[in-house]
């Protein structure tokens, strides 16, 4: 349990630092991902396609333990908070990267879904995970300005 606390913290901090630097690299560029239902520009559209990204994240044993205790008293469960925020950030970031890499100008109608992947009802399987899926419609505008 102590190991889970130590290594869990180290590992998760490393992950969020990595995400921070990746997001920093895109700073200053406009974010092409929106949840608008229509394209933001009235230009001609060359092509569009469905794009999606997903990630499964799990809280560490330590986080599940502290979350369990916190749950008795209610209130904000910080350990879960961190995990879920991280998962959602990653998935949106990945979608943005995918759109940029495939040369799309914009992603509209973004939806983010959260699902809990259940533990086995019997046995001491400690695995718990959340899955985030982000999907949207990617758009490439025609090159000609009209």
């Amino acid at each position, binding site marked *: 349990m102590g*190991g*889970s606390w130590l*290594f*869990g913290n*180290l*590992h*998760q901090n490393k*992950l969020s630092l990595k995400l921070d630097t990746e997001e920093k690299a895109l700073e200053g560029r406009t974010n092409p991902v929106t949840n608008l*239902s*229509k*394209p933001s520009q009235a230009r*001609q*559209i*060359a*092509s*569009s*396609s*469905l794009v*999606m990204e*997903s*990630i*499964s*994240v*799990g*809280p*560490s*044993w330590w*986080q599940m333990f502290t979350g369990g205790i916190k749950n008795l008293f209610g209130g904000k469960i910080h350990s879960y908070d961190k*995990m879920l925020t*991280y*998962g959602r950030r*990653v998935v949106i970031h990945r979608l943005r990267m995918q759109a940029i890499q495939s040369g799309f100008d914009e992603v*509209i*109608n973004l*939806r983010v*879904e959260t*699902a*809990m*992947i*259940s*533990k*086995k*009802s*019997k046995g001491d*399987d*400690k*695995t*718990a*995970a959340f*899955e985030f*899926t982000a*999907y*949207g*419609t990617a*758009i490439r505008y025609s090159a000609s300005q009209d």
Partner: protein
Amino acid sequence: MSEGMHLSNTETVPGKLITASFGLVQGSTVRAKNVFKDIGAGLKNMVGGELKAYTELLQEARNEALQRMMMDAQSRGANAIVNIRFATSAVAGGAAELFAYGTAVTVE
């Protein structure tokens, strides 16, 4: 992904005109966690963070649900699916159902 099929989760295919509608199409698949992947993920769970084995498993499953939905649309003679939504639910312990649905249409 099958060629020539326009997919979109907006109400229309951007830049195209819908000429006919074929109603709701859907595709689903139920996947259980693999025992071996489970052990790896269980260990990874100790420190938390991304569980890559599950990410891949669910991505595969979602693609399959999407494929099935597209086959459904193709059999009706549609060339596009609009307003696509995904849903995930945990059925029986350790298994998840991935479900994709949308409206099959023809666009030009």
